[in-house]
């Protein structure tokens, strides 16, 4: 019995070696703040091997260029989002602070400050975890800040958990052209868009706070991109309040046209469920559903939002200062303010959202997505208490959940 057990153990150890030998001599590479932080940290990110931890010390790492990681299964860990700071104020090159292009990466407990472009971008990086990070432009909202704070794109399985992003001139947390996404327990503060899910499939956005932005949470689908047809997004149990920071996005970007004072906005997406949120103190409206408003040349693109359902949200004040085209006239016609929920009417009745919230919801009657809201023919949306079938609950690989436990 004893011998058998021993053989079994050796066989098991051998199997482990065959499957993933790296784990047995996985090491921790410690990098401290100080002289030539750029060279030392970048080198650590290059020489790290799968299974390794790159451990960052306390203090400010003064960086002169972008950083990048292209090794699978590496954890980059700081001593806390206040304690370990990657400072890109003096950055001379690269389009982002930190770029990750490998799979199974965990980024945790550090901050990225004042990168010239995006904060942390991950591209084609599957099963990536962002945990207890802070990405901040410390001067607050400015058009000269980078576009995105946390920016995973073209990836499968993304977990963004307990991060804080402030000052992004596009979206604080932006997930683009990806699938199987969770954004939770995070704070988006003083960005143009707090959280944005764009051209993506299967996302759960919950337990977040989006406040002080131009718009709290956006679910968009845009034309002329490799992945189209954004769908299956659940927005629930978030607090989306007081998003009244004047839009500071550089013109030309779609987000520059988002009205200041927007809570949650759905543009040209399918199957979006918005429920159990607290939404209020948003001057344009709490929830807005619209089509893609610009001319486009893409036969595969559908500019009409459909299968949007809204229920059990708690609404506070909304619509007293609408910043959209025709907003003031519409507000005047509706007794002084825009309703807490409105649908542009894009695509007509078959695409009407299901609304069960106990507040006024309006159809602007603009069946063409490119119509000017100033020409609206507003009419109330009939409240429905019949909920649609539930969307898939996002389940990530266990290792990703363990990484944030």
């Amino acid at each position: 019995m004893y011998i058998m057990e021993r053989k079994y153990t050796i066989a098991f150890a051998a199997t482990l070696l065959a499957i993933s030998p790296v784990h047995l001599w996985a090491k921790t590479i410690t990098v401290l703040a100080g002289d030539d932080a750029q060279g030392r940290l970048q080198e650590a990110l290059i020489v790290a091997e799968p299974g390794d931890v790159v451990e960052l010390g306390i203090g400010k790492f003064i960086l002169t260029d972008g950083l990048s990681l292209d090794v699978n299964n590496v954890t980059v860990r700081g001593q806390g989002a206040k304690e370990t700071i990657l400072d890109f104020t003096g950055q001379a090159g690269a389009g982002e602070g930190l770029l990750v292009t490998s799979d199974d990466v965990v980024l945790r407990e550090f901050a990225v400050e004042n990168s010239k472009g995006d904060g942390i971008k991950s591209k084609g990086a599957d099963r990536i975890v962002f945990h207890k990070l802070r990405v901040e432009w410390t001067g607050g909202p400015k058009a000269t800040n980078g576009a995105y704070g946390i920016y995973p794109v073209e990836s499968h399985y993304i977990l963004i958990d307990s991060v804080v992003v402030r000052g992004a001139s596009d979206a604080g947390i932006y997930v683009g052209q990806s699938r199987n996404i969770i954004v939770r327990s995070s704070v988006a503060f003083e960005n143009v868009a707090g959280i944005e899910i764009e051209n993506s499939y299967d996302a759960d956005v919950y337990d977040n706070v989006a406040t002080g932005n131009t718009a709290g949470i956006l679910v968009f689908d845009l034309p002329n991109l490799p992945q189209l047809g954004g769908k299956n997004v659940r927005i629930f149990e978030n607090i989306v309040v007081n998003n009244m920071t004047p839009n500071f996005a550089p013109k030309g970007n779609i987000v520059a046209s988002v009205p200041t004072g927007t809570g949650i906005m759905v543009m040209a997406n399918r199957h979006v469920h918005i429920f159990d949120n607290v939404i209020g103190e948003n001057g344009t409206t709490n929830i807005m559903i619209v089509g893609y408003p610009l001319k486009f040349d893409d036969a595969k693109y559908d500019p009409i939002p459909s299968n949007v359902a809204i229920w059990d949200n708690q609404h506070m004040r909304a619509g007293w200062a609408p910043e959209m085209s025709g907003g003031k006239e519409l507000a005047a016609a509706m007794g002084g303010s825009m309703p807490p929920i409105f649908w542009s009417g894009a695509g007509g009745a078959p695409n009407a959202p299901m609304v069960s919230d106990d507040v006024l919801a309006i159809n602007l009657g603009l069946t063409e997505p490119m119509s000017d809201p100033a020409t609206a023919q507003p009419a109330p949306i009939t409240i429905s208490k019949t909920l649609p079938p539930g969307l898939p609950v996002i389940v990530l690989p266990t290792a990703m959940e363990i990484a944030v436990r």
Partner: protein
Amino acid sequence: MRILLLTALLLPIAAALSAKEYVPHAVIAASSLPVSGNMVMDAHLPAKLSEYGFFNGAANAPSSGLIPYSLATPLFSDYSEKQRFIYLPPGTQVLIADGFGRVTFPVGAAIVKSFGYPDAQGKLKIIETRVLLNRAEGWTALPYVWNADGSDADLRVGGLRTNVTATLPDGKTQLISYAVPNKNQCKQCHSSLGKIEPIGPLLGNMRFQTLADKQRFLGSSVDVKKVQAMPAWDDVKDATVAQRAKSYLYVNCAHCHRPTGSASNSGLFFDETAIGPTAQGIYKHPVAAGRGSGGFEFVIAPGKPEQSILLYRLESLDPGVAMPELGRASVHKEGADLLRQWIKEMPQG
């Protein structure tokens, strides 16, 4: 049992370590300098450039085993001068994959590219040499920085920034914060679906000094007439503005801006896969440009270069705005002028 288990664990570790261990190669005599095929092929990172035998003790003394070539339309790299070489192992052969002249290299091949600037006496001083090695497991890209006396170059996986004084085409000089890319940055440009691959050697864009060099490179692999020549970006005599602009965009942008490249998510493509004007930037709205948009609506606004994001980013030196993102710390004025003319002459509507 513990000892047995420990042995079982340690044996494969020791084996793995020794396989990784660096084995020094004999220094090769300077004269008939053969390239070391082993150094190209071995799965390790040689610390010194001399270990490959590509150069005979100086950047301007390439081994006779290297085939020199140039490009009709080169990538702009801060006005540096570049020297390009290809190494093919004896008895191997390239394949020309298509009418565009895409080159498939045999395992064991290497592409070697040196970057430098003329010094005050007008003598070319090479700063760095980048090597692309086609190993059994795929291509590896490594940057080497030449030492002060120019006798050898050291591997710098972390890259380097160094100030250089460049002489511009108009005779003026400019101080440039020249960046030797780190190993990851090599891959950012040389990436296709996450794997490293060569960019430059497209037969249609390659030029050889001698017919003998061309024959050494091609062997018996292709009927060269079938490969379409790519016009030189500055060939005002034989190519139209549009042809030259397309060449320029292909070489300077398409390595990222193609469906398999680092900018795949942009939907903006300058390679031959782009179908329709929007994908090529014409009246295309920016996606993730941020302040890179410069406040403009379109990547290319026909007839309006001054309102085209493409030109705005090409002429910017701000790292959050500038394109290409890597390897450019100065504005390529002549390239920008070409694109300006192209956009200006483009019909609106």
